[in-house]
């Protein structure tokens, strides 16, 4: 088993090892050099000077999740399209480009449907515009 052409991944491992050594090394060297007197006040998380209230781990608006959702769908689409993109030029050279272009366009257009849907239903805009008015109306009706 020629292990020769697996050497391409050797720099990846060496660079990661260097990054780890740098981080851990600097922190260890720092531990010797740095002053170390943690006081209760100094350790409080920064709250513009006041005493911090409540834990930071309260939950957040769901729009962060919708962004991550649309990202992962397009990320996976990119992952599927990369092999087809690398092969597209070869097919064009042997004259078969039309069929591959058709497959490619169908794939992309189905996913464009997805983003158009999210756009129209207002998932993509950061501040939920329609939600603001309805809360106001509800207050009025009560």
């Amino acid at each position, binding site marked *: 088993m020629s292990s020769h052409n697996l050497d391409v991944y*050797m720099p990846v491992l060496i660079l990661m090892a260097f990054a780890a050594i740098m981080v851990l090394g600097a922190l260890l060297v720092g531990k010797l050099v740095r002053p170390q007197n943690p006081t209760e006040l100094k350790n409080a998380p920064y709250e513009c000077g006041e005493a911090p209230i409540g834990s930071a781990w309260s939950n957040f608006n769901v729009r962060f999740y919708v962004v991550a959702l649309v990202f992962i769908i397009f990320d*996976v689409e990119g992952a599927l399209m990369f*092999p087809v*993109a690398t092969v597209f030029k070869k097919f064009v050279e042997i004259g078969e480009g039309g069929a591959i272009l058709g497959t490619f366009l169908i794939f992309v257009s189905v996913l464009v449907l997805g983003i158009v849907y999210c756009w129209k239903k207002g998932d993509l805009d950061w501040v939920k515009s329609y*939600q603001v008015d309805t809360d106001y109306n509800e207050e009025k009706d009560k």
Partner: protein
Amino acid sequence: MFLKIMFILAATMTLGGAFLTAYTKNLMHACVYLLVSLFGVAGLYATLGADFLAATQLVVYAGGVVILMLFAIMLTGGIQNFVNKFGLDKVPSMGNGKTYTIAGLSMIITAFIIMKVLAPIFKTNVQGELPAFASTVEEIGVLLVTDHVLAFEISSILLLGALVGAAVISRPRRGK
């Protein structure tokens, strides 16, 4: 020689990450250990000569799924334990002794069954001369466009369904 080193490194990362995901008490740590384990699986793909799959694993899992998990943990109350309506402490959400014993027992049974199935395979695999590592991207591209073009198109429809479904579910509705 380097193949062995890389295999051992990737295997320890995968199995270490997986077992730490199973046994850590903090959900955030479980997510980080899952990331370490998936990183190890990408290394395993590299030792198996599947370089495109190693990169896809990095892009989709390390970049996408783990961040999705982290966001979901943030959006569902972080890592505190849940108590039921009467204030009594339910089974802690990260599992306690009892749940782990049940898990252990069922694992022993499944392990026994799977070993029965895999036994013949372990005995008979003869080792031929393995081909050298080659670039797999073009090959996968050709396969995707010729043999598996139907699966390629259906997966775009599946992604569309997943996108629309998840968007509808997680959209903050006005009514309760």
